[in-house]
């Protein structure tokens, strides 16, 4: 199987968010960037498991500038065969999806993987967009994927339960927790990753339709009000009269 895994760069979960002076962007000073965990832990690892079992290749694709090579190398160290980087600073979801689809449409990939969302913008948009550009089925929030020849059986998380679907390759799949287990790159992987190819390709022209105007920080939460553990009537009163939550 020929598999493509879309990986994204995101600030680490524990990043303290600060804005630039004009509030037009996240202040990148001191921000630790990582590979989006859903891409790394679940999408990439499940793709690798499939090729390890049945043969094939795993290609990574990332949309970004050269400073993204660190996370691409990590993906190669975990086990991907090669990588493509579309050389443009990512803007809207649609523009990122367009760049991925442009590469994928000539790549003859059997399955295109990505995480269910990135942990920075949490939009869940890119997978559906790539699928639409390529006219492929899209199975989102997959927590289990089994392949029998070209037929995949996939469990996907839905509100309050699970749906099981069957689909033939090619398709696009977004990975949720459960699809695979996180892998830590070993020394051999790290060494071989240095010689694996990253093809840098030029972006196609695309006019952004949704433009970020500004950012703001949420209002500070007021200090917690402690309630006597022996007086739960008081907590109920506060929830009813003050918070109006019940």
């Amino acid at each position, binding site marked *: 199987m020929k598999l493509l895994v879309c990986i994204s760069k995101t600030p680490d*979960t524990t990043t303290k968010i600060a804005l630039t002076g004009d509030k037009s962007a996240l202040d990148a000073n001191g921000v630790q960037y990582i590979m989006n965990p859903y891409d790394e832990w679940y999408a990439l690892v499940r793709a690798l498991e499939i090729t390890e079992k049945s043969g094939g290749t795993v290609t990574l694709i990332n949309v970004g500038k050269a400073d993204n090579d660190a996370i691409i190398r990590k993906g190669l160290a975990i086990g991907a065969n090669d990588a493509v980087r579309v050389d443009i600073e990512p803007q809207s979801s649609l523009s990122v999806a367009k760049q991925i689809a442009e590469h994928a449409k000539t790549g003859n990939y059997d399955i295109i993987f990505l995480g269910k969302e990135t*942990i920075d913008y949490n*939009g869940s948009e890119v997978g559906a967009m790539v699928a639409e550009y390529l006219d492929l089925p899209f199975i989102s929030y997959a927590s289990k994927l089994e392949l029998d020849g070209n037929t995949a059986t996939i469990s996907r*998380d839905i509100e309050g*339960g699970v749906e099981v679907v069957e689909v033939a390759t090619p398709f696009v799949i977004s990975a949720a927790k459960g699809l695979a287990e996180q892998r830590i790159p070993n020394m051999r992987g790290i060494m071989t990753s240095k010689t694996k190819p990253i093809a840098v390709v030029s972006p196609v022209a695309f006019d952004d339709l*949704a433009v970020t105007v500004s950012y703001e*920080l*949420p209002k500070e939460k007021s200090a917690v009000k*402690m309630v006597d*553990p022996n007086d739960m009537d008081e907590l109920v009163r506060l929830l009813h009269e003050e918070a109006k939550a019940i």
Partner: protein
Amino acid sequence: MILIFAEHQKGQFKKAAFEAVTYGYKVAQATGSSCAALVLGSASDAGTLGKYGASKVFQVEDAALENFDSQVYAAVIAAAMQQTGAKLLVLPHSSTGKSLLGRLAARLNAASVAGVNALPVVDNGFRVKRPVFSGKAIAEYELKSDIKIISLTGNALQPQVTGQDAPVEALSVTVPASRVKVKSVERAEGIVPLPEAELVVSAGRGMKGPENWGIIEELANVIGATTACSRPVADADWRPHHEHVGQTGIAIRPNLYIAIGISGAIQHLAGVNSSKTIVVINKDKEAPFFKAADYGVEGDLFEVVPRLTEAFRKFKGGNG
């Protein structure tokens, strides 16, 4: 025209559908437009969406729409957008809505913003806000295309009854064949799914074991809440995976979130910090969750929770 995709489950509209129609109605009023709802598949009382502000309900009924496939649904919604001339589409920010948003944005070359939680600013262009970085910041976007698509988070606003039932008009749309075969759907019966729940009672490792969950379920029953859990609890199979809230689980924003025996790791907070009111019950006064809470109770949960259940029961009794 503003078109609202009214999601339903086997003919029963979700609360998110009424919220989205109310949202569309308010945007229509602000922009001098009109708001219509779109229903895919069979739902007997589609006209009821009119009560929340839809002046018309368009419906496409076809056996192929009984199961959800984003590719089929997107094709039908795009056709409905064209037939009705709608310029703004509002989707629920549910697993269904999220799968459709990206598809339709690509298909219609439309600007899209996922997870909007407030009305747009429309005096100069069209701008919307949404939380980003797991609620640690808010971003404002300008949507510059002719056709615009947004998904609305649950509990962003309350549904409001503004009128009467609306006329239902069948739309004639060619429904493409699905390439995805649904083999089974399993849902926990009789409970409000977490993303839609207004009240959530959630518990963590402090519970010591799955056999102790009776006090959590009793508390949830008394106030009509949905139960949830932290990641370690789901990982240990103490509770089902679909109850797991947090960064890797489900992100929720209920009116009230009661966290019991959960320390409040940043990954957990990322999924729940948009809750309107947070109550934390923990015996460790250093638990980081207290910093994110509105109300805190420092004490042994095995004593505090039954006491709180009794207090709610008394309150419910006194308030009919």
